[in-house]
């Protein structure tokens, strides 16, 4: 069981169709059934009507003006986008933007499903349906208009008789769908405001414009029916139901006056449409083009992987403190943001009332890119120094983006997972942290202490009374020394070694592996941190030093071999080894202890048949195991196989799981804000009524333990939520006689 095991878990998960996105997509299909029904029945009905048609440019002179305007409109849009692209191009080119496309099929799939199919937008039922209404309406009405034009220019008349009537009906119904969508979007902003909501003039301009277009479209149609159809061929007009109703509303208006009003509204509608569409180049309406592009551009590597600073010693700057230090893609995606606020709604820091909102990070950077980026572009054009005249600008890092916001990030990836337009907030935040730590050496005392301990002692647990081998005191003879001959290296990691609560889990894992006769060994006394905390805290240089040291140890001890597998105790070690160490020359395979244990249970080498007390358990997903590495089911399947255990879920689970609060180095920081993330998560676990919370990460365990201390302060000890690692529960069920004494 190796890297392929990770993939198989992913595959199984995908077939289980549990993600919210899929559920909402499934809901969306029945929603369209009535509409389809109407169209089918109506289609059959149209056969009975013959000769129906309408005149293009009815009642309109000088319509050629429109064709004259069209190139202007397209030009204005392109000008807007090209102009803006100069700001994007201040950034550094990525491999992708140099034309080096990796994983093209994945990217194209994302472009189609995530861009065109709006897969992620649909995860939220209300706004998903709203967006689908507006989008389908726009697409259908665009096609309808195009078809009308085509019909006019080809010698054969397509739109006559039944075809014309069907066409009218489709156009009418989708116009109505569009109005429903716009109404939902307006209501969204009034009736259903979200914490992160930030509606601006842009929203109202786009929505107001769109609403105006749809309404004037129906007025024009109604007036045409009133003046030319309802009295001559009334049965035709039934096929434009909305237009027919509007026509009835105008029935008191004299034909000559109605024709004048028709002309006026026709021009308002048409010029309005062409004006509105120019917003594509100047407002968040650009997401029509940019969002699918961003879906294509999003990295295809594991979401928890950070980019390595290659040749760090030769860099002119470390991390990002200026706009031009970002990659082009990072600047580009600032403009993709539509301010939907889903990132912030899912951000653990924001949920706990702490000073971070991923949406505001992106939006504030976007404003900065507009103000300062445009000036930098102008400087380049005029041949000035890039930063000419910008000395008095508020600095980007520490000014526009506050330090405490950058530190509050857990790198949990909930924002990235939630973003319907595929923005990657976490690398952007970590890049700015890199500048704080390496460029400016400006960080909270707790961060400094953690980094110093990492530098000096090779682990982040400042003040620990333990040594690397303290956990095996009394059972040294039962912990085999790594010889290079065994199949698995058990990498205990710093937390499993230096924190007493985690030491218990380490011993449980060892006990289970001995019970199942796994061929494993431990590098006693010589392990060091793999660098993950330093990297997440922004100290890429220290990460690289630690990683080089550990890989050297792995080389010397025969671990760094494609045939060898490292079992990690901690999901953070797992992510770093699996996704980031290959950049540093690692060749070994990686597996998390829950994956190994599931495999051992499946093979019958561990039999969880001992009675454990009857209990309900809720499983808490570690971000770095779950969201970042798609391992959701292995730990759950272990729990399901333990007798007397009933598994229940918290509302936020799997891809939508809430971080325990420790990620991104926050394990070692003081939290600032209204409440603590771990308390919020413990409250969610307690609310399920579960007896125990199970997880598979030593950080999560500690965060839960300390959260329970405050959330359940007044609860009797016996009634408090228990917190267990999956391995501990399995040990209780599968290691019957504790013969190994651990």
């Amino acid at each position, binding site marked *: 069981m190796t890297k392929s095991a990770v993939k198989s878990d992913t595959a199984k998960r995908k077939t289980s169709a549990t993600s919210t996105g899929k559920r909402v997509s499934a809901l969306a299909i029945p929603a369209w059934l009535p509409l389809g029904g109407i169209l089918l029945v109506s289609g059959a009905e149209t056969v009975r009507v013959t000769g129906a048609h309408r005149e293009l440019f009815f009642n309109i002179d000088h319509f050629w003006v429109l064709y004259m305007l069209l190139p202007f409109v397209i030009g204005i849009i392109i000008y807007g986008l090209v102009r803006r692209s100069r700001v994007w191009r201040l950034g550094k080119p990525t491999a992708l933007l140099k034309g080096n496309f990796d994983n093209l099929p994945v990217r194209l799939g994302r472009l189609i499903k995530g861009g065109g199919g709006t897969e992620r937008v649909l995860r939220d039922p209300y706004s998903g349906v709203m967006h689908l209404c507006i989008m389908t309406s726009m697409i259908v009405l665009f096609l309808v208009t195009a078809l009308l034009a085509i019909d006019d220019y080809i010698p054969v008349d397509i739109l006559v008789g039944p075809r014309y009537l069907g066409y009218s009906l489709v156009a009418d119904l989708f116009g109505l769908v569009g109005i429903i969508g716009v109404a939902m979007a307006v209501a969204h902003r009034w009736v259903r405001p979200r914490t992160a909501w930030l509606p601006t003039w842009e929203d109202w301009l786009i929505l107001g414009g769109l609403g105006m277009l749809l309404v004037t479209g129906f007025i024009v149609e109604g007036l045409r029916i009133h003046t030319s159809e309802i009295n001559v061929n009334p049965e035709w007009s039934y096929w434009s139901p909305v237009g027919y109703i509007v026509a009835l509303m105008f029935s008191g208006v004299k034909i000559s006056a109605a024709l004048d009003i028709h002309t006026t509204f026709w021009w308002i509608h048409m010029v309005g449409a062409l004006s509105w569409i120019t917003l594509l180049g100047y407002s968040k309406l650009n997401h029509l083009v940019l969002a699918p592009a961003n879906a294509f551009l999003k990295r295809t590597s594991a979401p928890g992987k950070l980019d390595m600073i290659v040749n760090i010693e030769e860099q002119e700057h470390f991390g990002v403190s200026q706009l031009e230090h970002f990659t082009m893609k990072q600047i580009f995606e600032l403009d993709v943001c539509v301010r939907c606020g889903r990132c912030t709604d899912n951000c653990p820091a924001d949920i706990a009332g702490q000073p971070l909102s991923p949406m505001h990070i992106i939006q504030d950077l976007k404003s900065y890119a507009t103000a300062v980026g445009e000036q930098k572009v102008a400087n380049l054009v005029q041949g000035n120094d890039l930063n000419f005249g910008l000395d008095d600008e508020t600095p980007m890092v520490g000014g526009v983006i506050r330090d405490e916001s950058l530190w509050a990030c857990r790198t949990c990836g909930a924002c990235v997972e939630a973003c319907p337009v595929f923005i990657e907030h976490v690398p952007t935040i970590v890049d700015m942290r890199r500048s704080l730590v390496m460029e400016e050496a400006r960080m909270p005392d707790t961060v400094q202490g953690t980094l110093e301990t990492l530098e000096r*002692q090779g682990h982040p647990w400042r003040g620990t009374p333990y040594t690397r081998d303290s956990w095996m005191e009394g059972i040294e003879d039962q912990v085999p020394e790594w010889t290079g001959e065994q199949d698995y290296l058990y990498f205990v990691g710093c937390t499993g070694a230096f924190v007493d609560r985690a030491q218990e889990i380490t011993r449980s894992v060892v006990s289970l592996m001995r019970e199942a006769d796994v061929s494993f060994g431990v590098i006693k006394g010589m392990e060091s941190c793999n660098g993950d905390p330093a990297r997440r805290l922004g100290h890429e240089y220290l990460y690289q030093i630690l990683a080089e040291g550990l890989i050297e140890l792995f080389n010397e001890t025969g671990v760094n071999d494609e045939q060898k597998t490292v079992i990690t105790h901690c999901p953070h070690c797992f992510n770093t080894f699996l996704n980031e160490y290959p950049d540093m020359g690692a060749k070994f395979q990686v597996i998390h202890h829950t994956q190994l244990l599931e495999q051992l249970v499946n093979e019958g080498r561990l039999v969880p048949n001992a009675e454990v007390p009857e209990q309900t358990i809720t499983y808490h997903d570690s971000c770095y195991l779950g969201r970042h590495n798609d391992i959701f089911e292995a730990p759950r399947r272990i729990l399901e196989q333990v007798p007397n255990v009933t598994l229940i879920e918290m509302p936020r689970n799997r891809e939508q799981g809430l971080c325990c609060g420790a990620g991104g180095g926050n394990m070692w920081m003081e939290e600032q804000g209204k409440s603590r993330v771990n308390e919020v998560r413990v409250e969610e676990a307690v609310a399920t009524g579960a007896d125990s919370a199970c997880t598979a990460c030593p950080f999560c365990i500690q965060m839960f333990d300390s959260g329970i201390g405050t959330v359940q302060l007044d609860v009797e000890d016996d009634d408090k939520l228990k917190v267990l690692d999956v391995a501990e529960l399995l040990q209780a069920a599968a290691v019957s006689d504790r013969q190994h004494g651990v």
Partner: protein
Amino acid sequence: MDVIVCVKQIPDPETPAAAFKVDEAAMQVLPAQGISPVISPFDAQAVEAALRIKDASGDGTVNIISLGPDSARDAIKHSLAMGADEGYHLKDEAFEGGDAWTTALALSRAIQHLGVPDVLIFGRQAADWDQGTVGSIVAELLDLPSATVLRAVELNGESITVSRVVADGFENIDLPTPCVLTISNEFGDPRYPQLRQIMQAARKQVTELTAADLGLDASDVGAAGSRVQMHALFQPTSDVEVEIIEGDTPEEKAAGLVNALREAKIL
């Protein structure tokens, strides 16, 4: 204003007790596995004080001297990374096994060799042996005024105003320059070096000086010149006995605790 800071490299004071071992026969502390020695925290604060003096005076240099084995170079490099200008490493087999007196003697000669600066700064004590004497001995050897265990240092024209931590409060004094200062932990945290400075420091040459360079005879320094004789080095053991006071109610437990404390003559 020119400053010289004397720093010492010591075993990391944060070494867990379980990893701290001494060789009782050789009367030496054994280095803990995987834990690098560090600049004594008080000395890092001394470097911080020197850098602030340099910043406040607007010019001058901050130079570093350290006496110790090869690895002591890392303590100098750390100081350079924090922003110090030049480093001098007193490295000689003859220095080995010395005490506070021989260290102070070698340091004072090195300071004279480099030229006595406006201010000489030490940490209040090295955080390994905690004797806290080297700074004062150097002041005596160079015949300079000194102020020890400082929580604040302020430039005051040509003189320096300092605030000492004393048993019952603080004592503020003015000193003329040149003078010797020793810095206490109340002074504040030392700065964390910027990566660029760490890299520059890594490239910077550290000047090595031997006993002979300083005009010292091997018999004056190190074990030969030591005035302190060590008789034994051992890790004290402490036995802790725990008695749980039983009782049905908190009141009973409290009464039991009071009785136990009285029996132990604590109350």
